[in-house]
Structure formats: structure tokens, C-alpha cells
């Protein structure tokens, strides 16, 4: 299990946003959104903030840190 997990897919679905919509708002590729949603890529702090802002939530609501997970 990765150390940093996120609720991007869930929050995005609640807001009826496509992966491309979110990617455009954040300024990343759709493939990066897919990788983040699958917990295969942990974004930089700056991108994490941009994702949270784009989804209208705080950073903690979007990303969670699990110290037992692998980094």
C-alpha cells in the first residue's frame, strides 16, 4: 500500500468532472491524473495543492499519509 493515498477519483466523480477536465484545471496530463488516482504516482506538494483547490477541498481531505505504507 502506498504511503500517500488520495480520494481524487471519488471527489472528481462527486463533482462530475472528467479526468481531462481535472488535468486541464491542474495543468497536468490526463495520464498523470490516472496515475494519481491509481495511487501509482505521488504528486509534488505544489501539484497536490492545485488538485485540492481544483476539487474545492482542503489538502487533508484529498490526500492522506499512511506512515506504514511504502514510499
Amino acid at each position: 500500500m502506498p504511503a500517500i493515498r488520495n480520494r481524487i477519483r471519488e471527489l472528481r466523480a462527486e463533482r462530475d468532472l472528467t479526468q481531462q477536465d481535472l488535468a486541464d484545471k491542474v495543468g497536468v496530463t490526463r495520464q498523470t491524473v490516472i496515475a494519481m488516482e491509481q495511487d501509482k504516482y505521488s504528486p509534488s506538494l505544489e501539484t497536490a495543492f492545485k488538485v485540492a483547490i481544483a476539487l474545492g477541498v482542503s489538502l487533508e481531505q484529498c490526500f492522506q499519509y499512511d506512515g506504514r505504507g511504502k514510499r
Partner: protein
Amino acid sequence: MPSLSYREKSLYASLLAELIVYGPYFIRHHQQPLNTVAGMIAAVVVLQIIAQSIIAASTRNRVTDERDRLIELRGYRAGYLTLASLMVFGLGLLWMHTAAGDFHLENHHMGIHFLNVFFAMLVIADITKTVAQIVAYRRAL
């Protein structure tokens, strides 16, 4: 068929161009004269320009982000490690042959031989870099 980002398409095109041009070089395994090596480099450059132009023209979204840059760095690391390993291996062989006395610098084919060996090392390192980047993209990182 998974969707490919602009960078991924570009990498596949680079790999294809390199394999098309350098493939016969490795398969035939002959010592190529200087003109042939220069011709191959020119062919790769021309093929790359054509392929990258087509991809750029046909791809609407050409955004690159931090993940692309991270994958690029990983590719360069793999390429560097390959090149360094090959250089150490080559220098070791050179030392062994010199010590055994079967290495004659006065041989006029030696220059072409060295050119081909170093060129092959660069090509292998570059292909390794591209493949490492493609693998990183396919594994999501």
C-alpha cells in the same frame, strides 16, 4: 488500447527511428566505415524530425508536467548507468588485450574499430534511456 500522452508517442517514434536505422548496424555486426556511421546519424536525425513533426501536428494536447520530467530523469539515469558500465567493460577489455600484447595501435583499422565500438556504446545507452522511459510510462511511473 491505452491512450498515449504526447511524450509517450514521441518516445515510441524515437525508438522506432533508432531501431530502423541502427538495427541493421547491430544485426550485420560489420565494422562500418566512417561515411556509413555519419550517414546513420543523419538518417536518424531526419527520421526524428519527420516523426516528431507528424506527432506534434496530430496531437492537440502537448502538455508536459512534473511526472514527464521525473520519467525523463529516470531514463537519463538508466542511459548514463548503461554508458558508464559499457565504458568500464570496454576499458577492461582494452587493458586485457594490451597486457596480452595482441593490441597493435599501428594497425590502420584500429581507428575504425574504436569508432564503431564507441558509437555502439552511445546507441545502446540511448536506446536504454528511451526504453526505460517507455517502461516507466507503462507502469504509470
